[in-house]
Structure formats: structure tokens, C-alpha cells
């Protein structure tokens, strides 16, 4: 396995954390992982994304030009990365904010009502967790849901630890929202 994943969304949607969380979970399960945030151009606001590689062998290049998986939490992100996704790739997108899904037919598009499910879990801020949940179901090789839940305490800063119950709920809701696992 060598999954190249892009997480993308607004700054503030917890994109970087999402990537980090998945990495730690996979690392704890013995996989090779890497994570590079796109750290903006000394610019404030705008979109954020990070490139994550999860692999069973050493990772030569941590860069992700053509992701195999993309998690898009808002429309600009979807627009930016849809074309870059490799054929057969998986696109998980936040259908709470994105009305029209991707145009391409050679990819697997999975809409997730991330905002709604996050609210349901207890906070609209947990949309990133919902998306991760969906990702874990869509591709079961990346990491187990339990591993991700366990990794929360490592990934989240101390002052946000109190949100972890909500986060776990959101992860589960996202996981369950996807009907069939692809891998």
C-alpha cells in the first residue's frame, strides 16, 4: 500500500490536524507515514491543505502531486484537487458545503455531510473528524477506526483534549456514513 492523500479545506477547518491524526494512527500500527502541510504563502486566510503518505514500505517521496485519495472540505479545495487526483482515486467531499460534486467519471466520489454530522456529534468544528471517519471506511488499509481514536490524545493539543469525546463520536458518524468500503 502507498496511499497519497490530500486533505484540503478552509484554514480553521482542522485540515492539518486531520492529516496528522491519520499519520499517528497509521504510524502506531507500524506503517510508514509522512505529512507535509501546504503552509500558505506568508498569506493569511484562504485555503489549507496537507499531503499525507501512508505506506507499508519506506516512503521515498513525501510529496504528493497526484493523490490517490483526496478529502475536500470545501468547494475551492474540490476544484483545486479534482483534476490532480489519479485515475481510480477516491474523492471524499463535504457535501454540507459543496452542492455539486466532482465532474470526473474515472474517480470514486463520496459525499459526506460533514458539517451536519459534526453538529450531530456535538460541534460543527468536528467536520474534519467526520471526514476522517469516512476516509477510514472508504479505505480500510490506511488505519483502523480504533487506532485513530487512540491517536487522538497524541495528536490534539492539551487544551483541546476535552473535545475528544465529540471527536470520537464524529469519527464514528463519518465512518458509518459511508456504506461500502472500497478496499
Amino acid at each position, binding site marked *: 500500500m502507498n496511499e497519497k492523500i490530500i486533505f484540503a479545506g*478552509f484554514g480553521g477547518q482542522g485540515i492539518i490536524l486531520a492529516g496528522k491524526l491519520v499519520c499517528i494512527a497509521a504510524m502506531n500500527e507500524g506503517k510508514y507515514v509522512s505529512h507535509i502541510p501546504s503552509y500558505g504563502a506568508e498569506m493569511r*486566510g484562504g485555503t489549507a491543505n496537507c499531503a499525507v503518505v501512508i505506506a507499508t514500505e519506506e516512503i521515498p517521496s513525501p510529496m504528493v502531486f497526484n493523490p490517490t485519495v483526496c478529502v475536500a472540505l*470545501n*468547494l475551492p479545495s474540490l476544484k483545486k484537487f479534482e483534476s490532480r487526483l489519479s485515475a481510480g482515486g477516491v474523492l471524499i467531499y463535504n457535501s454540507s*458545503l459543496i452542492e455539486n460534486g466532482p465532474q470526473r467519471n474515472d474517480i470514486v466520489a463520496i459525499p459526506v455531510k460533514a458539517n451536519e454530522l459534526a453538529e450531530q456529534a456535538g460541534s460543527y468544528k468536528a467536520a474534519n473528524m467526520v471526514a476522517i471517519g469516512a476516509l477510514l471506511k472508504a479505505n480500510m488499509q490506511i488505519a483502523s477506526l480504533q487506532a485513530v481514536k487512540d491517536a487522538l490524545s497524541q495528536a490534539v493539543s492539551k487544551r483541546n483534549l476535552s473535545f475528544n469525546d465529540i471527536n470520537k463520536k464524529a469519527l464514528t458518524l463519518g465512518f458509518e456514513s459511508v456504506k461500502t468500503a472500497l478496499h
Partner: protein
Amino acid sequence: MASGRPLIDKKLCKGCELCVNVCPQKVLAMSEQTNEMGVPFARYDDSGNCNACTFCAMICPEYAIQVFKNQEVLNKG
């Protein structure tokens, strides 16, 4: 008292709420909806209570607000 109305460009609004807080007439509020950038934007409540003080426009960091004032003009007709 003067009257008028603010015209808010919701595309430019970043949802900072400064206009809402500065409005002496309390006629502005944040919308439940979000704009393209994903943020709730400011709305005029259309109450007609705007006094055209322009405070909202003066403090808006996004130049998102224009203000109209109802002014009397000589009826030359």
C-alpha cells in the same frame, strides 16, 4: 433623524461582526447562511431604522459595506 440603508456585499464579507457591534441602531446581524468563503455574512435587517451614520462601513475591514442616505432634494418639478 437621518435615515438610509447599508448595502453589504456578501461576497466580500469575512464575517468579523465588527459592523454588527458598532451599529448604534442595532440593525445589522449575522446571517445564518454562509457565503462562498464559508463564513456567515452580515445582513441589514431592513427595518428602516438605519440612520446612515456610516459607522458600519467605516469599521468594515473588507470595504464590504456601502451606505445610502435618504436626502431631500428640491422638487424642481
